[in-house]
């Protein structure tokens, strides 16, 4: 059957036959890097057009429909426009940091790609602390935003960056705690182990209400962490014009833009991996025929399907809700999400010890 792991294995075998082991490794590294960058660009294009279409339909509009069939090449046209645009650096800006910030945002987003299992046995790096790696590296994101806000020498940017700092540091907690519930249940930090632990059912079904609560908390927290509406205070168009990227233009702006979308993809991929079984197909108990049909669907389709479903949910939030105020945002975290997820973690731990889950 056609699958990503077969292709990867074929390439590996072919390279092993034709080159020496060191060369094979180097070529494989380069191929992986190119694949990540390609995925990056592809995701940017797909997610931008997806967001524009989703928002348009929710807003009783048609959305982009001029470039390409049904407007599907609109984001490509936008990219070309952004590439040929002049990237301005403001006069009073700290030039080094100003130019560095978008690259840090990109690098963080790329690093986060490493432990994600895109299909069955298809993973860049199956390290044994995959989940910890993700939550650790994603915190670096805030540095790029703070850097951008500070270096721009603009008060709006600075305020956006400060808001973003407070916000990401707070929401990191409940995101981490809801990830921990799954770690407790599956007993492993490795992404592949967590996925295999869901072979007999996804955690969201196996884990009763506590995991459902953890899932909702996770979605809210990652929406906040990726600075998406209703938590887009760092950008807050109507308050801070564009927040931390007010002064950015051209490709540097595009990098921030891309990093935001790739981050959304990554957190949704993590959510799909932890709660919805990653590339695991949907199985119902002893319905053998049904399960076989589900198995026939390639694992990559399962993974991307789940991820894009979560992305859609986050977009759905964005185009429905008004923005929170900064104090309400922090209230929500410290007064509601954090206590709830702490108690929830306690319950899940008890559940795991007493083997109450399926």
């Amino acid at each position, binding site marked *: 059957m056609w699958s990503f792991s077969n292709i990867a294995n074929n390439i590996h075998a072919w390279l092993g036959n034709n080159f020496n082991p060191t060369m094979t490794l180097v070529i494989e590294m380069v191929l992986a890097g190119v694949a990540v960058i390609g995925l990056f660009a592809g995701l940017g294009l797909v997610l931008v057009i997806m967001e524009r279409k989703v*928002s348009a339909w*929710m*807003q*009783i*509009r048609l959305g982009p429909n001029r470039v390409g069939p049904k407007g599907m090449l609109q984001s490509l046209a936008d990219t070309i426009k952004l590439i040929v645009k002049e990237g301005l650096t403001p006069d009073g800006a700290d030039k080094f940091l100003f130019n560095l910030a978008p690259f840090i945002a990109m690098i963080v987003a790329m690093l986060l790609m490493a432990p994600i299992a895109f299909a069955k046995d298809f993973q860049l790096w199956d390290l044994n602390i995959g989940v910890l790696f993700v939550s650790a590296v994603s915190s670096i994101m805030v540095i790029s935003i703070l850097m951008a806000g500070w270096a721009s020498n603009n*008060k*709006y940017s600075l*305020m956006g960056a400060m*808001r973003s700092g407070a916000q990401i540091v707070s929401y990191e907690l409940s995101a981490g705690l809801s990830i921990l519930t799954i770690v407790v249940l599956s007993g492993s930090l490795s992404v592949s182990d967590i996925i295999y632990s869901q072979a007999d059912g996804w955690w969201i079904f196996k884990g009763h209400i506590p995991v459902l609560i953890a899932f909702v908390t996770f979605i809210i927290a990652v929406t906040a962490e990726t600075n998406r*509406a*209703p938590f*887009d*205070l760092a950008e*807050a*168009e*109507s*308050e*801070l*014009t564009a927040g931390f990227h007010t002064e950015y233009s051209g490709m540097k702006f595009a990098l921030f833009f891309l990093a935001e979308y790739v981050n959304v993809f990554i957190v949704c991929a993590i959510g799909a991996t932890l709660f919805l079984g990653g590339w695991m197909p949907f199985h119902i108990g002893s319905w053998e025929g049904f399960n076989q049909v589900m198995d026939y669907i390639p694992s990559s389709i399962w993974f991307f399907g789940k991820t894009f479903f979560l992305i859609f949910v986050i977009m759905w939030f964005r*185009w*429905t*809700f*008004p*923005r*929170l*105020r*900064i*104090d*309400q945002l922090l209230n929500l975290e410290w007064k509601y999400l954090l206590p709830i997820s702490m108690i929830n973690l306690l319950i899940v731990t008890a559940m795991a010890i007493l083997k109450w889950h399926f």
Partner: protein
Amino acid sequence: MFEEVGTTPEGDMIINVGPQHPATHGVLHLVITLNGETIKKVEPHLGYIHRSIEKMCESLSYRQFIYVTSRMDYLSAHMNNHACAMCVEKGLQVEIPPRAQVIRVLMSELTRIASHELWWGAMAMDLGAFTPFFHAFRERESINDIMEETCGARLTMNYMVPGGVMHDLHPNFQQRVKAFMKLYKKKIHEYDEMVTGNIIFQNRMKNVGVLSANDAISYGCTGPTARGSGVSSDIRKLYPYEIYNTLEFDEVLETGGDSFARYMVRIREMQQSIRIIEQLIDNIPEGDFQTKTKAVLKLPKGEFYSRVETARGELGVYIVSEGGTTPYRIKFRSPGFSNLSVLNHISKGSKLGDLVAMMGTLDLVIPDIDR
């Protein structure tokens, strides 16, 4: 005028909101003193769209000056024209035919709904919810289509002239208005679902920008801004003009004084406007739509003041005539100007994000403020 230093001597940050800013919906310039996110002082700098309409009107005849006033508060263009036409009629001592009166009231109320629709969408957009903006435009567009059919323009109609209205109603008018009201009633619950009932929205609006009744009076607030604080200020009720005293409608009053109260006043006012239209739409009297007036209008020497309730509050037109064909001095008492003056008072101590909510619920239209 732009502050060169970024901070005050006390170390507070000074930030320029505007003249180009997404939340000001025009070219309002606010110089804000901030302590962190907390507002200490808001100082409006006006005049970016000042055209000195009052001076322009001094060289225009009594027929001509009315069209300029459409450009003041462009969202209540009919009411502005209405006030001017009424003032000139007062000077000429012309009675306008009943049909024209009914047409004027109908048009004013339709404009009020259209204005509030736009405000609703724009305010939700200020708070970060983009979708209601487009939904509001669906209803607003159908009003604009009605206007376009009867008056020939969608925004700056110049439909009300001294002595009545410029054209008769379009034959489709009644049918189109009824269709609009049907659409509106079908969609009204979405306003609650999308915005009013939303918990985030309510938290953003409640206890934000509280304006007490005494302050509302002292600052000269009118319209929904004053009525949100419980101050009865509806000119249609207090000093009825045209046929408003024969109509059944309530003056919408809320007592909260906060942004949410002002919001609710406007939402409920739309329903009152629908009520007025329902009473009138089947009872438009037959007859002339205009009293014939002389080609060149001359007002007697004296002073004339007339006021109407626009979507934003009380618009007063004060004409001083020397007996000639042009006004000697004309003053527009615009509601937005007085409503803006309260912004500094109510925004002290609140967060920067609240300022947007306050500006939204004061419903500032910049050409109305600058004139």
